[in-house]
Each structure stands twice: as C-alpha cells, then as structure tokens.
C-alpha cells in the first residue's frame, strides 16, 4: 500500500491533509481532551526539533542548551501579554518580536562558542542553557522580571479575529474546544516551519552548512565564511525555539523556569537522534514518538492495576526504563535513526566505514 501511495504523491498528500484535519476530533472522541492537548504538545515539539535540527543536523553543531531559546520566547510572550507588566499586545506583534529576540540571543550565545567543536561546544552550550534557566529563577529581585520560581501566570491566550483561544468557542456555528483551535494554529506554524527548513536545506546556505559539518577547514578554504554561517545556524535554530516558546506560553497560560530544564534540551536532542538527524521526516517522527510514547506508557499503571490488582512497578520509573532500553536498542540496530536521510545512513553504515578506511590507508601510503 505504501508503494502504491508513493507512486501517487498528490493523492497521498490529500490523504495526509484530511488525516491531519480530522485528527483532533478523532482523538477527542477516543481519548478525550487530554489526547488533543498531547497532539498540541507534539506539534510544539516538532517545531522545536526542526529548529534544533538546523543547528545539530545541518551545521553539525552539538547544542545542549537549546531549551534556553524556548524559554526566552515563552518569557518574552509572557512579558508582553500578561498582567505582570500590564501589557496585552496581540500575538501577531509579539511572536515576530519574540523570534527576533530569541535569534539575537542565539547569536549572542553562539559567538563565544565559535572556536569550539564537539564535546567542548556541547558543554558550553549546556552551561548557557542552565544560565538562562537560573536567571529566570532569580530575576524576581531587584526588579521583578520573571516572578522567580513561582513563574508567570494569567498569560493571555491567543486571539484571532475576535475568537479567544480559551474554554469553548463557537466558530462558524461549530462548538470547538480551545485545544482544537491551538491544534490548527500549531499545525499551520509547523507546516510553515517544515517548508522553511526544506528550502534552507536545498539552498546555498544549506549546502554551506553541510560543508561545514563535513570538513570545516575545507569549507573555509572553499570560500565559506564559517563564522557567519555558524552564527546563522544558531540564530535560525533560536528563531524556531523562540516561536515555539511564545506559542507554548499562550497555550499554557502559565510558565515557570521548571519547564525549561536540561532534561528538556536532552529530550529534544533525543527526538532528532531517534528520528534521524538532518532528515526532516525523521525528525518529525522522532518528535511525535517521543511526545506521545511517554504519555501512552502512563497507562501502564492502570493496566497493572487491572491485571495484577496493584501497581507493582511505578509507571514513571517504568517509563524511564523503557525509554532507556529503546535508546540503547536503537543505537545498536539503527544508529542513524528510525528514518535517516540517505546521506546520514551512508555516513554511519559499514560500507561507509570501509570506504573511509580505504581512503585513509591510501593517504597514509602517500605520506
């Protein structure tokens, strides 16, 4: 069936569109509101994963503090649309400004790390991620910017054409939950982000990023301004993060520093590694899987109670266990990810290894 669909891309695209359009209603009936919320979060994580993929997957810069940009976007939204400062700007003004704000921080945090590679870069970015979180935790004095660990609440929901995205709303005579509205809004942003990422990938900028990832010295000697392009990668990634953060703040109505801890950065990195680094469909699959699987595993507690009469293993512990096991198995059997790009698969398969070894030995003979 998949082969048949592959031959008819227009039909499969139409099917996919219908599926995405009715998905929240089906989920709402089958699982309830919590299921639709889960879908909303899955889309936010897809946005985040796509952004991190620009930095890690394309430019090859391992960024472990990516969640900082999510936090910056969220706080920026909260500052301009909550009773905290008494400002209530519309979302279409805040989101563009918020993404620029996050992008500026992307450049600011990227600049000192330019000379670092691999492990060192990862550790410094990890530090930056924590610095932002700790700032948010402590910026309630001397001037109360972030309300500290209590977080900021009563953040305005998004409002489009007089329809506020809260509670239950009537749209075109239909009664719709806010979570459904957010689903379509997030879906629109996600589709735009996918297009954005694809076009960047196929442009001269995407090629330059790939060149930097492959061999930075050769890239520089081919006339690529490695400094600017690395900063651009950081800024672009931060843009996606800032956008997702703003949407998250509006959706939740409440943010606190605890939402932006290191585990979140690692989770997003896991999404792109699991799905297939540098390959957009893979990244999307990874993000959706890692958002939905942990939620699904939550039902294991109920299952145990039903079958054994009591909860033997705590569901939260079991989740981490299964999660870890899945990652180990994946590294063993699918090191390039569940749905890797052809290029990445080549990089990580035995064939590629053999070729590389042959080359190295050839060069050694030269010397």
């Amino acid at each position, binding site marked *: 069936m998949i082969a048949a669909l592959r031959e008819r891309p227009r039909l499969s695209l139409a099917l996919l569109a219908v599926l995405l359009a009715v998905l929240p209603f089906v989920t709402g009936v089958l699982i309830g509101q919590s299921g639709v919320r889960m879908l909303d979060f899955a889309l936010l994580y897809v946005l985040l994963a796509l952004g991190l993929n620009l930095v890690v997957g394309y430019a090859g810069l391992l960024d472990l503090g990516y969640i900082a940009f999510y936090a910056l976007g969220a706080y920026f939204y909260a500052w301009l649309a909550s009773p905290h400062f008494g400002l209530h700007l519309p979302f279409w003004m805040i989101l563009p400004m918020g993404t620029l704000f996050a992008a500026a921080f992307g450049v600011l945090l990227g600049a000192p790390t330019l000379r670092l590679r691999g492990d060192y870069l990862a550790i410094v970015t990890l530090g930056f991620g924590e610095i932002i979180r700790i700032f948010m935790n402590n910026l309630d004095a001397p001037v109360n910017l972030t309300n500290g660990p209590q977080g900021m609440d009563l953040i305005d929901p998004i409002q489009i054409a007089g329809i506020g995205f809260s509670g239950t709303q009537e749209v075109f005579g239909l009664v719709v939950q806010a979570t459904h509205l957010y689903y379509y809004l997030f879906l629109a942003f996600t589709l735009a982000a996918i297009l954005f990422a694809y*076009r960047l990938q196929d442009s001269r900028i995407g090629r330059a990023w790939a060149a930097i990832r492959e061999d930075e010295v050769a890239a520089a*000697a081919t006339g690529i301004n490695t400094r600017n392009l690395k900063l651009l990668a950081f800024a672009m990634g931060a843009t996606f993060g800032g956008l997702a953060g703003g949407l998250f703040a509006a959706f939740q109505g409440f943010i606190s520093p605890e939402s932006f801890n290191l585990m979140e950065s690692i989770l997003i990195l896991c999404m792109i590694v699991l799905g297939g680094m540098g390959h957009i469909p893979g990244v999307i699959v990874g993000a959706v899987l890692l958002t939905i699987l942990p939620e699904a595993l939550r039902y294991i507690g109920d299952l145990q109670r039903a079958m054994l009469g009591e909860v033997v293993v705590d569901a939260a512990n079991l989740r981490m266990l299964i999660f870890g096991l899945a990652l180990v198995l994946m590294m063993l059997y699918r090191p390039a990810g569940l749905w890797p790009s052809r290029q990445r698969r080549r990089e990580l398969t035995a064939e590629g290894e053999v070729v590389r070894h042959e080359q190295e030995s050839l060069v050694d003979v030269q010397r």
Partner: protein
Amino acid sequence: MCSAKALLEVASVGKRFGGLAALTEVSLSVQQGEIYGLIGPHCAGKTTLVNCMTGLYSVSDGQIRLSGESIQGLKPHAIVQRGFARTFQNIRLFANMTALENVMVGCHPRSRVGVLGAVLRTASERREEREIREAAHFWLTRVGLNAKARSLAGHLPYGAQRRLEIARALATEPHLLALDEPVAGMNPSERRDMADLFLRLRHDHQLTLLLIEHDVKLVMGLCDRVAVLDYGRKIAEGSPASVQKDAAVIKAYLGGHAA
C-alpha cells in the same frame, strides 16, 4: 617575464611553531599567467607556506601580497574571495556529498542569496541556483568528471577525487590556484593527463598555478619557474634547468655528497 605583473608576492615570511622555525625568510613572487613550482624534500615547509598564504596559518614575520594588496591576517574565505584558491595534499572533499554538490559548494563565494531569498524562493534565487548548477557541471566537465556528477565524492576513485577537488577550487573562480601535490599517488599516464589539464586551465582561464610537488620530473617539464625549499629556507629559484644544476639543490636532495 620581467614585464609581467607579480600576482603573489611573499616577502621574507617566517613561521614558527613554538621553538620550531618551519619557515625562515622565505621570499618569492609568482607572476601572472605562469606555472610556478614549489619543490623540496620531505618536510621542507612547502605545505606550511601554502597554509600561510591561504590564511590557515598566521605568519610570524614578513608580508604576503596578492595583486599588490596585503592578504595577511585575512580569513581563508576572504582570501578565496580575492581570487586565491587551493587544494589539499591529503584530499579534503565533502565525502558524503555528491561530486556535483561538492563543486556547487565551491560556487558559494560567488553567489549571494540569503536566508530570505532561499526561504521565499524568489526569482533571483531560482536563477542563481540554476547558474550555480550550470557552473558546477561546467567545471566537472573541465576536469572530465561530469559523468560522475551524482556519485558520492567519497566513493570516487583516488585520481577522480584529486580532480574533483580541483574542480571545487575552480568553481570559486580564482586567478591563482595552489595545488598541493596534485599528482601524488598517480601512475605516469595519469600524471601526463593532469599536466595536460593544468596547461589547458592556464590557457583557457588565464589561470596562474602554484604547484607544490615531490615529483621533480613533472615540475621540470611543466613549470616556468621553480623555487626550492629546504628546512624552511629557500635555497634556489629560477628556471627548471638552472635549478637542476644548482649545487645546493643537489645537496638537499642527495644528502651532502655533491661537490
């Protein structure tokens, strides 16, 4: 030759790595349109000199000028932008990209579309992308690799990788191209093909070539002028024939037995 302009001038350049003097007081000038050979025994500092010229190393002393302008302290990409490209001794291709993509990356410094153009796919972006593709095919054809455009660079045979690296450097549209041991590891017939290629490139594209080589025979047959490095110093310069007879050169190559 005297009437020709000096394209590249190296004036008493020195390079030290800690206490080790890799280059001492090296001066040379490459004239427009010539094939200039840089030879010397193993570890004489040939590659170090090219790395200094192309901005990978910063020089400790001296001056490097391209078309009369100092290029010292410039980043590698800025030097490429000014028309000075290079290849590497230990081939540095983007191994997991196709041959075509490798050369397309070479077009980067001669194209200008930014993020916005790329994302919106503006008319100028599409035109530039088409031009880049055409230019890449053109350079691949020049080095005889167009049939392999879709092959992965890392899967190409050794000689083809060398030629691909040259095509990538040519795509940056240089006036001066430094080739670091371009025929190393090739058999005699491949070497003849490469020599022909160099002559054709010079003729068709007004290219000046700086050839770093171990293979004395190739250098002698191809180069207009030759400089010889030994232990980081220039010990001789001149026409291939005169250098071949130079006592210091014979001593450097044969190890002190010359009269």
